[in-house]
């Protein structure tokens, strides 16, 4: 959470925030999770505030999750995507954002394919900005909901052993999670072929292995990333079949485990690639639990930004 000269608070990256912020947000997310279990799933906390969802890259769950979070706090929400707005007429991000703010928006939630665009936005608009995923940079609310899920399921974060498997290089989810897990004192092991790891990744305070079986014997949490099918065309690895054999959570691998880790996935899953369909069915409750947690965590974030908790 950073604050600009005009007193607006932003959530741009996990790299920006400290441990205390993460923990207190996870604490308050627990209260917001309770709101979603009530017969009337709405509290008046952000009544009269307006939040704009500016999603310039395809997204289902994050966009809907932010929209529900805002609505359950009684904020008004306007959502628009690249294809239905003036963006498709060539309006620049800057002009779009200025238009929104001229209409009296209190916060902009932005998803953009260029890393750093949320940060740029803070210089142009007089309101709060939330990063809902920017290029290959960060996806802070995803990391927060993942930590929330780990803490609720396993009871602790400090000393937790988390293995992240897959395309680390292109993953903003991995990047945000590595930062967040480091800050709360968890241990991180990356599992991937060298071709899917960013350069100088060791500097982020993580261990690396090429063996999923080694990771499975070690971890408390197995975090599978989505393999983007277009990476095969880029020759990052020989074939999907090859990837699955080496890095996929197959039924055989899963059945052979004596101590089963918590399996998580940011969605959408590629069944048959990073996880075999039958295993996916078995661990589905955790993954849908991540989605449910997403609403609570985003309520906590929006409330923290707009609830005026710091003056």
């Amino acid at each position, binding site marked *: 959470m950073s604050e600009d000269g005009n007193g607006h608070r932003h959530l741009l990256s996990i790299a920006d925030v400290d441990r205390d912020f993460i923990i207190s947000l996870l604490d*308050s997310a627990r*209260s917001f999770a*309770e*709101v979603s279990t*009530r017969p009337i799933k*709405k509290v*008046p*906390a952000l009544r009269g505030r307006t939040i704009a969802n500016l999603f310039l890259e395809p997204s289902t769950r994050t966009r809907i999750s932010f929209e529900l979070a805002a609505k359950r706090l009684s904020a008004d929400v306007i959502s628009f995507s690249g294809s239905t707005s003036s963006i498709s007429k060539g309006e620049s991000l800057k002009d779009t954002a200025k238009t929104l703010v001229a209409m009296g928006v209190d916060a902009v939630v932005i998803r953009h394919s260029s890393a750093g665009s949320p940060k740029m936005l803070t210089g142009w608009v007089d309101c709060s900005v939330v990063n809902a995923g920017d290029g290959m940079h960060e996806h802070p609310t995803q990391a927060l909901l993942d930590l929330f899920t780990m803490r609720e399921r396993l009871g602790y974060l400090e000393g937790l052993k988390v293995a992240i498997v897959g395309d680390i290089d292109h993953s903003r989810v991995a990047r945000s999670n590595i930062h967040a897990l480091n800050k709360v004192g968890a241990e991180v092991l990356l599992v991937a072929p060298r071709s899917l790891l960013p350069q100088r990744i060791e500097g982020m305070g993580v261990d690396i292995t090429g063996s999923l079986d080694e990771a499975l014997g070690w971890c408390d949490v197995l975090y599978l990333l989505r393999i983007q099918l277009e990476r095969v065309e880029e020759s990052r690895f020989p074939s999907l079949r090859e990837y699955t054999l080496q890095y996929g959570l197959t039924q055989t691998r899963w059945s052979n485990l004596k101590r089963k880790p918590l399996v998580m996935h940011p969605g959408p899953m590629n069944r048959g690639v990073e996880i075999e369909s039958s295993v996916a069915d078995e661990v589905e409750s955790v993954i849908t639990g991540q989605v449910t947690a997403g609403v609570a965590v985003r309520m906590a974030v929006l409330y923290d930004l707009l*609830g*005026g908790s710091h003056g």
Partner: protein
Amino acid sequence: MAFEARAKVLDAEDLNRIIRRIAHEILERSKGSDELALVGIRTRGVFLAQRLGEMIEEIEGKPVAVGALDISLYRDDVATRGASKIGVTEIDFDTNDKKVVIVDDVLYTGRTIRAAMDALMDFGRPQVVQLAVLIDRGHREVPIRADYVGKNLPTSGNEKVKVLLEEVDGIDMVEIGEEREP
């Protein structure tokens, strides 16, 4: 700001007697503990509600539903005062057609109770909602009054009433005093 106590208003025994009296009053007015539920406002109201619940169980011989309400998300001053740390609301019983008694430690402006009623109504439609407070210190800003009062304590605006409870503070005591710049 530091709290400077001027006088002790209630001690542990006084508090116990008040809980006992209010428990009897609630039972008298509700004609027993059927359909009765107690909902404490976080933080200290919750402990008072639990004590009242235990007392009622002791008198009637059967348990009574006790819940906890966090009203941070219903406050009317979030924008000006800033958001406080949010606690969890726990109402794991059906409030529909129940006789609900809201329990809090100090009744002052009445705004907390206004928020609590809004919060409570989101859980269902109770038959009756009543209010029990340990201390009523006056200075209402909204038309709200308590049905059960432990002690009326006329105060001035710059005075402060401090309620200490065993469960959180390690001692049962109510003091009146002033906030002073340290």
